[in-house]
């Protein structure tokens, strides 16, 4: 991309918001899988892979310091490192915890989406010179 377009769209705000949305969408899939499997014997709860989570945190740090975000690994889900107590059938999913996680995660996703929307709206106003 040319210099002008690059500096328009690679601001720390836009990049970190976009990364957050990626991560939150992935986490929602993990939570939905947990909720779906709440009655499956022997099921251990899933979460975003620690590989991806680490890369995400690093990318956020890089972006806030003005450096490029770096390559993100494949978006994968794996068995969570922290498992709660298992019920007699071996299932470790706590449905209340998953519902709370889901509410918090979706709030984060929607917040990032709203911030992106207003960011783009501001840019549009700046570029066209008229408030729409």
């Amino acid at each position, binding site marked *: *991309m*040319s210099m002008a*377009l690059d500096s*328009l769209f690679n601001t720390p705000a*836009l990049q970190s918001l976009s990364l957050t*949305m990626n991560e939150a969408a992935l986490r929602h899939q993990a939570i939905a899988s947990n909720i779906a499997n709440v009655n499956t014997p022997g099921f251990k709860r899933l979460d975003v892979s620690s590989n991806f989570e680490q890369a995400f945190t690093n990318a956020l740090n890089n972006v806030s310091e003005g450096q490029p975000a770096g390559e993100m690994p494949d978006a994968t889900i794996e068995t969570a490192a922290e498992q709660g107590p298992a019920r007699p059938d071996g299932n470790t999913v706590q449905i209340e915890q998953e519902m709370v996680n889901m509410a918090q995660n979706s709030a984060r996703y929607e917040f990032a989406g709203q911030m992106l929307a207003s960011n*783009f709206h501001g840019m*549009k106003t700046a*570029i066209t*010179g008229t408030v729409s």
Partner: protein
Amino acid sequence: MINPLDALSALTQQMQAPATGANAALPTVATNGVGAPNAVTENFSLLSPTATEVPQIASPTVSGGGVGGPSTWGHMVQQMVRDVNAQQQNATAMVTDVLKGGSTPVHQAMVATEEANLSFEFLTEVRNKVVEAYQQVMQMQV
């Protein structure tokens, strides 16, 4: 009397210097004879298409003096047009992937679409400002 073509070549040379894009320095008419024979060969054709499928904002090609390096105003605008086109195609590809049920997240396609639209609007504004500047120059009383 000031030759309008000389004035235009001076304008484009001034626009090259800051290289910041749209609202470059206001055109000042210089009465120096900047290679008068060369100025005649200038073609400042803002509104005529230069290539095939790209949304067309044609660029002025300056052939005056020794200022034909890779960072001329014309090259910059052409590069921007290519970049905007690439962005639009990338956004369309992402949207198609979402529609086909592929692995692209929806918000990524939305962000790409919005960025492509904004880039295009930005380019349009650049063109508008350049045309405005040109018209201002042409309207000057000589």
